């Protein structure tokens, strides 16, 4: 699977989410804000686990980040988090430095895309 083909943000997911809560845009915006707060903490926890080479400590935050990211449509980050979760489960942390770097980049792109989306809907 080539995860880098996934989009930083798949807006269609956010649109579906919005439709699934009765077109409640405020709810979705609040949810994205919550995601950004929790996501930041999860990315930090994953970074620390990678730095420490602690596979067990990696799995939980990676899993949570994967599933939250999928919900708000940041698919590339979700895929990266999924790979980290699997690597943690298998105990393979060989290229931890690369993984941290990719996570940092994906998180920055994802959060930027979400902020941009929020700015867009606020303006609309």
């Amino acid at each position: 699977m080539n995860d880098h083909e996934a989009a930083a943000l798949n807006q269609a997911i956010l649109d579906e989410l919005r439709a699934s809560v009765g077109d409640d845009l405020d709810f979705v915006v609040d949810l994205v804000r919550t995601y950004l707060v929790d996501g930041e903490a999860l990315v930090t926890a994953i970074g620390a686990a990678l730095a420490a080479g602690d596979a067990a400590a990696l799995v939980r935050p990676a899993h949570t980040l994967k599933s939250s990211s999928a919900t708000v449509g940041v698919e590339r980050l979700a895929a990266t988090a999924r790979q980290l979760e699997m690597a943690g489960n298998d105990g393979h942390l060989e290229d931890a430095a690369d993984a941290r770097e990719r996570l940092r980049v994906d998180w920055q792109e994802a959060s930027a895309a979400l902020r941009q989306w929020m700015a867009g809907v606020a303006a609309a």
Partner: protein
Amino acid sequence: MTAAGIALVVDDSRVNRLVLARQLTALGVEVMEAEHGLQALELLRAHPDAIDVVLLDVMMPELDGYATLAAMKADEDTRHIPVIIVSGVEELESVIRCIELGATDYLVKPIDPRILAARVNASLSEKRLRDLELEHLEEQRRLTQTIERQKAELSRFLSPQVAALVSSPDGERLLGGHRRQVTVVFVDLRGFTSFAEQADPEELFAVLGEYHAMMGAAIVEHGGTLEHFAGDGVMIFFNDPVPQEDHVERAVRMAIAMRERFAPLSAKWRRSGYELGFGVGIAVGYATLGRIGFEGRYDYGAIGNVTILASRLSSQAGPNQILLSQRAAGMVEDVVQVEPIGELEIKGLSRPVSASNVVAK
């Protein structure tokens, strides 16, 4: 359709919990949240009756969905609560395992609110039915307990046969009044009135207690229905409410047993200075039986000439005599030895009646 109930959403992702909670609230469902299985089990144990459905993520820290489900199913208080597994597309394998562990249904993320509504409503209906069933069973159990307690209490006051009759399906009809051939036995103590005037209350009750205990045992042994104890007088009938083909013989054998057991009691009382004799009257005939009395105090009683005749024969009986009406004597003369004592003038009856005394077994 609007569902009403309480759902417990268990997911490690706050974002996912918020989405589910929002969608469930739109269905009219109240939401409780847990971050992982351990927290979920704590909430379930604290509110086993409040939570109507659990939406359970599979991969979670602390305690995952499998272990949570297994723990719920192992607990008597939580095993009936429906569990809907919420999983990612890539986790479908785990859904199968969860269904095998007892999950009711599953949902795949991202969740379509219409499918969520359908699954949650189905689970809530199932839970409501189950709750009604449990409520019904509990009600039934309480009712049975009450009836059993009343029966036990009743049997201390009534003849066992009458207590059984009261709680039998036929009870109401039989209590309402019916006519049947019965053998009526009257027993009383000669000399009781003067004894009662002289004796201390303690002595009086001690003597009556011994007498009633002896009589009671004999009544039960022979399957008699005790109508009442009136001080020294006791009325018993046979063949009702439980039919007894040999009702006359049973009555006579009971009277003989009482007479035998009375002898040592009477000797003992005599040593204390009380002269008490024993007399019995037995008659056979049709009587009307059923509930007699008034609201608040009913007896199961027999009414008819047969009871009057038995009572009069008992008052005419000499010490240790068991007087049988002519008809009763005719029905048992093959099994016990009877001796005609001629005709007796009986108060209330226009013609004298022939009576016999039971001489021996």
